[in-house]
């Protein structure tokens, strides 16, 4: 009986003594002051700013699926403003998001905004 228990315990791998140290990644600045403006809910004006633009390689612009709430990449830009046309159908209440990507390809958290 004891040999069965010993086999049960010894026969399995042991976990590490400690988890790996955190990665040293350079996190880009998170966009701030994100505003969404539209007159017809078709053409959208998006504006934002960052504290250190030189630490950002590109910005990602997202829309959110109204059913699943999932962020969908709509466009990418190197500027801190974007005009976006969503098509012929007005989409009132459309939720937008923007994030910054560092030169090391690390993406900041997404900042959300919607038209007033």
């Amino acid at each position, binding site marked *: 009986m004891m040999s069965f228990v010993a086999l049960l315990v010894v026969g399995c791998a042991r*976990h590490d003594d400690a988890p790996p140290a955190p*990665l040293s990644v350079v996190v880009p600045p998170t966009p701030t002051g994100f505003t969404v403006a539209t007159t017809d809910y078709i053409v959208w004006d998006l504006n934002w700013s960052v504290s250190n633009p030189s630490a950002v390689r590109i910005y990602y612009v997202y829309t959110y699926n109204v059913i699943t709430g999932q962020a969908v990449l709509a466009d990418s830009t190197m500027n801190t403003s974007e005009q976006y046309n969503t098509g012929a159908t007005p989409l009132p209440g459309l939720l937008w998001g923007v994030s910054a990507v560092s030169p090391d390809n690390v*993406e900041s958290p997404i900042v959300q905004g919607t038209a007033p």
Partner: protein
Amino acid sequence: MGRYSEMSHNHVPNMNPAGSGRKRLSIPAVVLLLSVLMPVQAFADNTQALLRSLIVPGSGQAHKGHYTKAAVFAGATILTGAGVFLTRIQYNQANDRYQNAKRTYLGYPDQLSGGTVISVTDINQTYSDMTTAWDDADSRYKWQRAFMVMLGVTYVVNIVDVLMSDPAPADPEIPRVEESSHYYFQTDLEGVRVGAKFGF
């Protein structure tokens, strides 16, 4: 006369009904024999009880008639054994989660240098999952060790106990229903009567 009586005395037939070939044992010889045989018998009983307890803790105590102790040892063995088994399963699950998260987390630098954009939210979430899983695995590992120690102590105490304890005294004989007991079936004008009589 004296010669005759001597001869007749020498030829008196052996009237012992047990037979002429059997030798009588003296009292010291009987005591000596018992003193040898009783430890041998006790050793044999102890060996059998020891073997039983080595295989199934508590069964040696049951063999000696100590049923309460047998239940305690068997119960403690089952509980601690189940503890070892369950904590091992939980440990394996936590360790699998940790290894998966660790593999993902340590793969991030290669993905980033390869041009894949990864959200810092995902990186932080993976790190959090990894450390949480490691904490779980470490905790389960310590619990498993504790249950193993308890199981080992139970096992050793069980062996020592079965070696040290004497057989339990026999229970007093329970009165038996004697042959005078019987059932009866009786009918008369008032009805039917069925009964039983017991004699002790």
